[in-house]
């Protein structure tokens, strides 16, 4: 019990700043995740022509994967939080 209480008290202190570059990358490429559905984003990443169109083809495979994950996570039909007033 005491341990859990201490964990709760000190948790905010043990975290450090971190921000994702992927959202910035998407912004830089002019890609708005909410403009497409999940399957449509999947189609983009399967098509060389479409990747070229969105300038995704110039990215490394790792970045491509991360960007794909980000865009799918925030796609128009992705699972969204349900919270009052948001």
């Amino acid at each position, binding site marked *: 019990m005491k341990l859990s209480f201490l964990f709760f008290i000190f948790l905010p202190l043990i*975290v*450090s700043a971190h921000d994702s570059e992927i959202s910035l990358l998407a912004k830089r490429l002019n890609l708005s995740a909410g403009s497409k559905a999940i399957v449509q984003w999947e189609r983009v990443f399967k098509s060389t022509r479409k990747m070229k169109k969105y300038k995704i083809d110039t990215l490394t495979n790792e970045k491509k994967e991360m960007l794909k994950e980000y865009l799918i996570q925030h796609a128009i039909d992705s699972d969204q939080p349900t919270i*009052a007033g948001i």
Partner: protein
Amino acid sequence: MYKFILLTFLSTIIGNAAALQSEKELTNKELLQEINSLKKELQELKQSTQENREELEDISDFTEDIEATLLKDKIEFGLGFKTNLDNFNKKYSNGEHVRNNNIWSNKLMLNMKADITDNMKFYGKLSMYKYWGSSAIHPYTYYDNMQGRVPSDSSIYAERAYLNWFFYKDSAFPMALTIGRLPTSDGPSHQFKDNTVRKGTYTALLFDGVADGIVFTTNISKLLHNKNSYIRLGYSKGYGHTESSQTAGNAFIGASNSDIDDTNVVGIFLDTPLPNVKNSLVQLTYSRMFDIVANPLDTNISATGANDNIGSLDLLGAMVELTNFKETNLDLFAQFGYSIAHPNGTSYMLPNGELVGLLGKDGDTSTKSGYSTWVGGRYGFGEKQKYKVGLEYNYGSQNWINLTQGGFDIYNKLATRGNAYEAYMMYVINRNANIRLGYINIDYNYSRSGWFVGEAQKISTVDSADVVERLQSVYLKMNVHF
């Protein structure tokens, strides 16, 4: 000689002129051919353009049909579906052991969303929750805050139905009014076990269940210089007295009664992320519940020891949640709750004849304070974190009381006055489905966990076949949300 030279010169000129004439003729021919070819191409192009135009018109008609269909489909539906297998092992305070194995249940959730205008959106959730092979109506289903939250018959209940009305969207402090059957269930940090995103507004350690009310939300991100910061003021009715429930045949709904007051709940809530910590949430809560009713289902309100208002309750909470902490696939949360019950000395008679008040005995007016902590974590591993393991622990003191009667799971573990441990493994089948195998162990230190009426007695001093001392379950759950 001069003649010869002149003749040669003339013949050369004439020869060149003839050759030039012939070249000119050839170029004209070619040009003509070129023109003809271009004409042909132009004709083809015209034809193709015409065809394209016709095709475009067809596509435009088709697109309009799709648009019309989309506009006609005013409500967007989503699916939630859960199948649970529980194997219970209960130890009662008299030492008796009872096993209930192979208990299956299904929960169907139809999630609704409608974008009425840019400034007004509707959300709803219709639920059916039942045990396999049984459509017996669970008595708790009649409690308003438990409808659709406890396994009962195959009826569909409205678990959520609310409007979000946004205004001053472009101002420094955008605002929203949320009205209806609110998103008060399955709040943080239950989403980790469901492998979904946050599905409720309020900390699940304090509130979990169905509630009707109004919430006013202001975005204070600019004030705190911290994105996604909100202040909420809420009002809800925990119990609304209706005359129709008092006397059969009297359908005078909503009439007030001098013998019993409605239970009203007000609260203030702050949501904000930890500064510079991605995917974090801090929530601070204060709420007060006025005029708690002893038994919302008891229609007898005028006799001695009958249903009545028994006091009020303050609930305070603080929580921190970190999702995918530092991109390590580790999710962590810690919550703390504090309850202060103010009994007014009014007594209520239980079916066994015992007279009880709010968290105490007959006539007891002393303030009862309790607290609870809930901590846990989940770690994802394997390709695309297809595998996850999670651990949760919560502790509640003797007089801990909260509003989780319509809780996330049937154990209502967050109301425990004692220790509860839960461990689970999850296999993520795909983005929308997962299977969870888990074990839960609840050791009750005090009786009547989750009950507003009656004194919480130390379990070791109770010898009863009705009081559970230890509850264990090995469960298997399949969860689909789409």
